[in-house]
């Protein structure tokens, strides 16, 4: 057997590692996830399988015929015309053209659009424009068509929004005040998410994506879950996908609960259960990448979290495999060898239902 193999670091750098070094990183990576979330580490056989995937001599790897899974996305098609900030290509084309090119040239399983400033708060003032765009495109698309945006509760705090910023209140010891402004912001966010989703439902929206949920912590996640509950009760013909922002729900509020369960500190295998209880149709866990560690270490962690999540989930699980999550390096142009190894590992070992 070859002594050394090219693998990636979490920042994308290509390095040579021996089989022993890769195995060591796989073991410490899975152990890290297991200890943090109190879930089982990967078995010896699964670690061996991961090693085989990582040391495959091919640049690009894939699953066997019949093992393919479907994909959902966060307005990926809009990258065709967006700029570098969005990893976009800057091609002069319309949003409708990008949707159809993604469906028919890239053969995506599902397609989606979103506002360029990808947050629900920013969509509200232009909802009629978004409705028009969505409706027009939905008459032309054949594949399932989502509208996506981020809850992004941080935009409701000063200087961007109406409420005092908890990041200013907490250092002053104003704990209760910080909790109260988060509760108020969460309610405003819930209303905005429901308002926008309801408007899109009225023009035939097939699926709504609450992407990068809980980015502002447990109150942000709470608003999302409340919005999902209401939407699935009132507009059940529209699918709802909930994608996460990281592997761990930050306790910026600390006391907030959904159906009796504290949201702060939840890991993906716990997050999926409250997302399910809210009524969502698809769950997208996001496992952080440590750019200083190797991809074997990061990928072993991601697969450990995803496997535990899929095992307890009764809804489809689509791990996020964008830049910087679930074993994909934090790099503007994610190396294709690392991306395909992440995808294959999450499907074959993590048993993901999609990506």
């Amino acid at each position: 057997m070859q002594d050394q193999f090219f693998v990636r670091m979490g920042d994308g750098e290509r390095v040579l590692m021996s089989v022993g070094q890769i195995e060591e990183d796989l073991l410490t990576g899975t152990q890290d996830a297991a200890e943090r979330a109190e879930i089982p580490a990967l078995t010896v056989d699964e670690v061996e399988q991961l090693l085989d995937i990582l040391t495959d001599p091919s640049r690009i790897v894939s699953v066997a015929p019949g093992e393919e899974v479907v994909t959902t996305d966060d307005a990926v098609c809009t990258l065709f015309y967006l700029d570098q900030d969005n990893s976009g290509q800057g091609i002069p084309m319309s949003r409708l053209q990008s949707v159809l090119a993604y469906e028919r040239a890239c053969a995506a399983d599902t397609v989606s659009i979103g506002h360029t400033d990808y947050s629900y708060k920013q969509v509200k003032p232009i909802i009629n424009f978004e409705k028009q765009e969505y409706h027009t495109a939905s008459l032309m698309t054949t594949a399932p068509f989502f509208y996506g945006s981020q809850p992004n509760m941080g935009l409701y705090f000063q200087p961007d929004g109406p409420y005092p910023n908890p990041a200013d209140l907490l250092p002053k010891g104003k704990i209760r005040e910080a909790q109260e402004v988060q509760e108020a912001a969460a309610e405003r966010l819930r209303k905005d998410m429901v308002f926008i989703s309801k408007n899109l439902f009225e023009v035939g929206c097939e699926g709504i994506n609450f992407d990068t949920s809980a980015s502002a912590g447990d109150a942000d996640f709470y608003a999302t879950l409340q919005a999902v509950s209401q939407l699935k009760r009132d507009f059940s013909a529209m699918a709802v996908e909930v994608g996460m922002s990281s592997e761990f729900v930050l306790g910026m509020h600390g006391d907030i609960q959904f159906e009796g369960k504290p949201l702060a500190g939840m890991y993906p295998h716990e997050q999926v259960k409250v997302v399910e209880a809210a009524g969502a149709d698809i769950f997208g866990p996001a496992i952080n990448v440590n750019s200083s560690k190797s991809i074997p270490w990061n990928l072993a962690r991601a697969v450990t979290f995803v496997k535990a999540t899929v095992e307890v989930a009764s809804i489809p699980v689509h791990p996020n495999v964008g830049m910087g999550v679930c074993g994909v390096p934090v790099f503007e142009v994610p190396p294709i060898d690392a991306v395909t190894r992440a995808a294959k590992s999450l499907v074959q070992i993590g048993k993901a239902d999609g990506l």
Partner: protein
Amino acid sequence: MGGIRTAGDLVAWMQMTRKMKIVEAKRYVASKLGIDLIDLSNEEVMRQIREDLDIGIITAVAGSAKGIAAKWKIAELLDIEINSVNLFRSKIG
């Protein structure tokens, strides 16, 4: 899975409308199409099936169903509710 090149969109519809896990969704679609599971991602099989059922094909053939017309047929084929189709139907009924 290959989107409308194969049966990727059909499997995705089952996840969205019935919360089906991947294996269950594939089995459901394969049974509706009357094909083996492995052929759901086989372009050589799915290209003809999609044309025969007129549920949208990847290449541009003038007059063939695409968009809302294809989705109408997909909703009937898979026995699911598609919101955009419901709206369209309500406008022509």
